[in-house]
């Protein structure tokens, strides 16, 4: 027996049954980001202001490139999940909400691809 009102059922309201997966993915990516963020703050931060050759040599080291790629992919994924909830919570104009939800997914997808291509290029020294 369902306690849902007929009006609610007609409007297609209620759980989409995706909440737990989203919640848990947000936390798993957070756990991955804990050590990576500490590494980023302590090691990569000074590199951001360095001259080209020094910065490139640092990022080209396989271990640094691997950690940076992992950090940025986890960051992009974690950010996508977080921004999605912020849009759901605060944007109540339907067309804008849907537009933003699509836009952030495209941006995240492109950002992840661009990062991977750029880092592979740097490591291979092209």
């Amino acid at each position: 027996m369902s306690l849902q009102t007929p009006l609610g059922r007609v409007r297609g309201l209620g759980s989409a049954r995706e909440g737990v997966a989203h919640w848990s993915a947000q936390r798993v990516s957070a756990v991955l980001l804990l050590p990576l963020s500490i590494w980023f703050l302590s090691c990569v931060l000074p590199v951001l202001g360095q001259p080209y050759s020094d910065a490139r040599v640092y990022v080209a080291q396989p271990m640094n490139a691997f950690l940076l790629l992992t950090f940025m992919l986890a960051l992009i994924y974690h950010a996508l999940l977080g921004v999605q909830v912020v849009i759901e919570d605060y944007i109540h104009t339907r067309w804008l909400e849907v537009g933003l939800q699509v836009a952030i997914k495209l941006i995240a997808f492109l950002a992840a691809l661009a990062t991977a291509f750029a880092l592979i290029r740097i490591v291979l020294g092209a």
Partner: protein
Amino acid sequence: MAVERPLSPHLQVYRPQLTATLSILHRITGLLLSLGGTLLVGWVLILAQGPDHHEHLQAFANGSIVKWLVCAGFYVFVFSLVYHLLNGIRHLVWDAGYGLDIPSAYRSGWAVVVLSIVITALLAWRAMNGGAA
């Protein structure tokens, strides 16, 4: 089609509290970090492009007015990362079921505030002495 009902949290009737402030700060820093992450992708792309593009970037970042903006933006990003990291640990501990009573929530809240400021200051001090910001 949509039924207009009042939205639940009537924030204006509450006195500002540490826990609520830190909660919204977690969201704000999260949004700022999303923005900063996008800029970081740009930095990696420019690094892959070659020295010419990187020179343009550094020339731009060293412009007289832009320099201060870049510097301010950089420290907002660093603070956001430190705060979101520490408060994220607080959230994970809550998710595990610990520290949910009010005194503990305030203690961990103040700890996060103090630690974020101290760690950001230490990172700024290191950047100024190491010459690279």
